[in-house]
Structure formats: structure tokens, C-alpha cells
């Protein structure tokens, strides 16, 4: 197979994800409503109660809405990553996974195509969310929006690969809801998305360590720093390393036999 054929395959997988995404408008709306509620309702109530001191990458005092914006961007990526894996389980149950597996291209490449496609669909939703936030005067630096794109892509790949890995362990669609509760909520709440880590440390040392070790925290910090055109090396290395690790584990644990039908 030639490089052009690999590229054609990638384009095809991405096009299918786009088409499915645009046809599921309710999915797009719900992906936006969730973080907007946090931003416009939850944060509005909390801004008076919670003071955020000057911490990197911020050079001045900021509102609580400004603080949680990167975390909410990553929340979209997290939900989409899990939604992507849900669609893998759905495809497996409905049989359409077999179409993918009948491709003569290597299966690890096909899975990576799916990952990239899911990640790019997530990015569109994040930028739509940032545009709405902009309208409500929650405005990161303009150049930061551009600088954050690679960070958002890496975070999306990390969370999608985690979702793909999880989907390999799920036998039936019905089992997925429980896993979502045990994965999404702990990842989100035990992170720096809603509160700075020093706040967590004030409350409890072990809670702080849980948050500090959470991969989602590093995804949030990577995006937060990038939005302010700064570079967080630790977050970058953790996200990059875990993305590669989760992707490798997802490829190795992928079992095509589950995609077939017994006769």
C-alpha cells in the first residue's frame, strides 16, 4: 500500500466522523450546553465565594470564569473522547466495525485514524464553546486561541485514546454508562479544572496528590498555559507520554473477534 492510500483512508474515516457529527445536532448542542451551564451558572455563583490568587500562567487577578475556562474546554474533550469510545462499542454491537476491519490497511493505523477523527471533531466543539464564551466577555488572549490548538489536539488525542482503551474492555453497550460514571466524574472533579491545586492542598494532602497525578489535570494545565501563550513542559511530557501509552495499550488490547458474529 502507498502513502497516498493511507492518506485516502484517513480522509475517509475523518469524513465519516464529520458526517455523523453534523447529522447528530443534539450531540453538538449537549456538548455545548454542559460546559456553558458550568461557565454561566455555576461559575457565576462561585465567583464571589472563591478567590483565585495570582498563579502561573496568569499575571494578574482573574475571575473564576476565566480560571475554569480551560477546564471546561477539556471537559468537552473528555466527554467527546468517551463518546467516541461509546460509538466504537456501538459500531461493534451494530456490526459496522466489521467494515473498518475488512480494510487491508493495518489495524493499528485504522484505530489511529479513528482517534484522530474523534479528536478533530472535539476541537470544533471546543472552539464553538470558546466563541460563545467570548460573547459573554470571557476572553483569553486572541493569539492564545491559536496557540492552544496543538495543546487542545494533544489533550483530545489523550482522552480519546483513554476512551478507546476503555471501550476494549466493555462487552456490551449497557455496561458503558457505569464506566462513564466511574471515569468521567472522578477525572473531572479530581483535577485542576475547577479549583487550583493549592486549594485542594489546603483541604487535604491526599486529595491534592490524587489531583496532581490525574492525567486530566495535566491536560487542563497544558491548555491553560497554551491559552496564555506559555509552555508547560511537565504537562506536555505527561500528556504526550500517556497518549502514546494509552494508544499502544488500546491497539494491543483491541480484539477484532468481538466485532464478528458467531455462527
Amino acid at each position, binding site marked *: *500500500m*502507498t502513502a*497516498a*492510500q*493511507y492518506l*485516502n*483512508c484517513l*480522509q*475517509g*474515516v475523518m*469524513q*465519516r466522523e464529520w*458526517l*455523523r457529527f453534523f*447529522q447528530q445536532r443534539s450531540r453538538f448542542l449537549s456538548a455545548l450546553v454542559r460546559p456553558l451551564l458550568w461557565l454561566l451558572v455555576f461559575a457565576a455563583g462561585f465567583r464571589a465565594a472563591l478567590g483565585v490568587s495570582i498563579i502561573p500562567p496568569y499575571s494578574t487577578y482573574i475571575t473564576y470564569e476565566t480560571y475554569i475556562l480551560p477546564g471546561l474546554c477539556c471537559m468537552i474533550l473528555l466527554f467527546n473522547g468517551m463518546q467516541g469510545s461509546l460509538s466504537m462499542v456501538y459500531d461493534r454491537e*451494530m*456490526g*459496522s466495525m*466489521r*467494515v*473498518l*476491519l*475488512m*480494510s*487491508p*490497511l*493495518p489495524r493499528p493505523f*485504522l484505530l489511529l485514524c479513528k482517534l484522530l477523527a474523534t479528536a478533530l471533531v472535539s476541537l470544533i466543539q471546543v472552539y464553538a464553546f470558546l466563541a460563545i464564551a467570548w460573547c459573554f466577555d470571557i476572553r483569553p488572549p486572541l493569539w492564545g486561541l491559536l496557540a492552544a490548538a496543538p495543546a487542545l489536539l494533544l489533550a483530545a488525542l489523550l482522552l480519546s485514546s483513554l476512551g478507546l482503551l476503555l471501550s476494549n474492555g466493555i462487552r456490551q453497550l449497557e455496561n458503558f454508562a457505569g464506566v462513564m460514571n466511574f471515569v468521567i466524574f472522578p477525572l473531572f472533579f479530581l483535577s485542576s479544572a475547577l479549583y487550583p491545586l493549592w486549594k485542594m492542598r489546603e483541604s487535604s494532602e491526599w486529595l491534592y496528590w490524587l489531583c496532581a497525578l490525574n492525567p486530566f489535570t495535566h491536560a487542563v494545565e497544558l491548555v491553560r498555559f497554551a491559552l496564555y501563550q506559555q509552555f508547560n513542559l511537565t504537562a506536555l511530557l505527561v500528556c504526550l507520554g500517556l497518549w502514546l501509552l494509552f494508544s499502544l495499550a488500546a491497539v494491543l488490547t483491541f480484539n*477484532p*473477534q468481538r*466485532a*464478528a*458474529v*458467531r*455462527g
Partner: protein
Amino acid sequence: MSICVQGVSFAYGERQALRQVDFSCQPGCLNALLGPNGAGKSTLVALLSRLYDLQQGDILLDGLSIRQHPRAALRQLGVVFQQSTLDLDLSVRQNLAYHAALHGLSRREAAQRIDAELARQQLGERQHERVRALNGGHRRRVEIARALLHQPRILLLDEASVGLDQASRRALNQHVRALCDEQQLTVIWTTHLLDEILPSDPVVMLNRGRVVAQGQADALSNGATQESLSDAFERLSRASEEPAL
């Protein structure tokens, strides 16, 4: 293109689905794989299409082992699965374009082949409709068009006529036979419905994971005594289940 199944056994854990299956298919015609539900036909299709890894034995396509050359084998195979694998929310054309991309075809090449296949399957006017809006017979035609897009030399149809009415079943069967004549396709048609088999068809009978008979349908049905293929199938299946003395 020849297909040769050699000593294939397969088990789902403790349950043995195929036992030392050996047979060859005649190139360029419809080969019927006949067996009741649970005989192991779909397992065999899953092995041929590399959805399952071979546990024992080998399958040769034109002498090439699919164990050693799985991707080369997949390029030669078009498959229509028993359960529909179309994306119901995409249009006919979008489904075909997705498959073409998975086989590495460029957009221009894919567009040409899609047009040709849609015309051949008489689906041109419905190409922009969502698959959800099509009836069972048309969906099967879309799946056949899709399976032929990358110009395979072997077409596997796993109980493709299940769920279709009598007229659609007959039309589908005739359509596949026409494809064999036009393109010299080697077809494996798995079924438990005997009326889909013609006297001249090469037949492999499978029961409880074993090949119980193989040969031309009229020879198997013992034409001299006017035994029907159905009777022959029952007789041979019964014989295969009787314990050896």
C-alpha cells in the same frame, strides 16, 4: 480465483465450532456453503474475512496463505455479512465512499467506481437517500455494490438473503449468478435455504462444524433416485451424527 480450506478447526472456548474442515471452491462460479443454523458457516466466513484469527489449519487464496498474507487476502475479498453493516444514517453514496476510502481509493477513483456500481445495481436514483429509507432488498444491493467497489476476485455472502421476501431472494440470487458470469467472480454463498441452489452448483455441506459432503448439487442429491437435495442433506447430516461403530 481458487479457495482452498485446509484442516481448519476453530473453538469458542470449550465449544468446538469447526472440526478439521477441508474443501475447495471452484473458481468463477457460485459455490454454495450449505448448513443449518449453528453449522459453523458464519464462523468460516469470519475466518475467511480475517475477523477471526485461524487457530488451526490454513486457507489458501490462489495458493496464498491468509495466515501469512492477511492483508493481501483482504484486498481480494468482498464480503456481505449476515447482519447488515451499513451505516443507516449515511446516504447510499456516503456508505460506499467510506468503504472505498478504507481500501485506499482516491476520491476520483472512488467516485467513478461508485457510479459504475450504482448503475449496475440499479441504485443510481437512490444514491443520495439515507440507507434507513431503503427496503431490505435494496440494502442488500447496496452491500453487494460496496463489497465489489475495490474489485475483489472473491465475494463472500453470508446468508445474504435472510429476511428478504421470496421475490427479492430470487432476484438477489440471480443477480449474484450474473456477476459470476460477467466478472468471473468466485462466490461463496452460505445458506440454509435449499431453493437457492441450482443442480449445477458446487456444494459444500456443513453440519455441526464438519463437512458432511461436497460435490455438485445434482450428484449429491442422487439424481437417479430423484432424491431431493433436502433429503440428501438430511440423510448426510444424520449419517455424520451417528456414532462410528
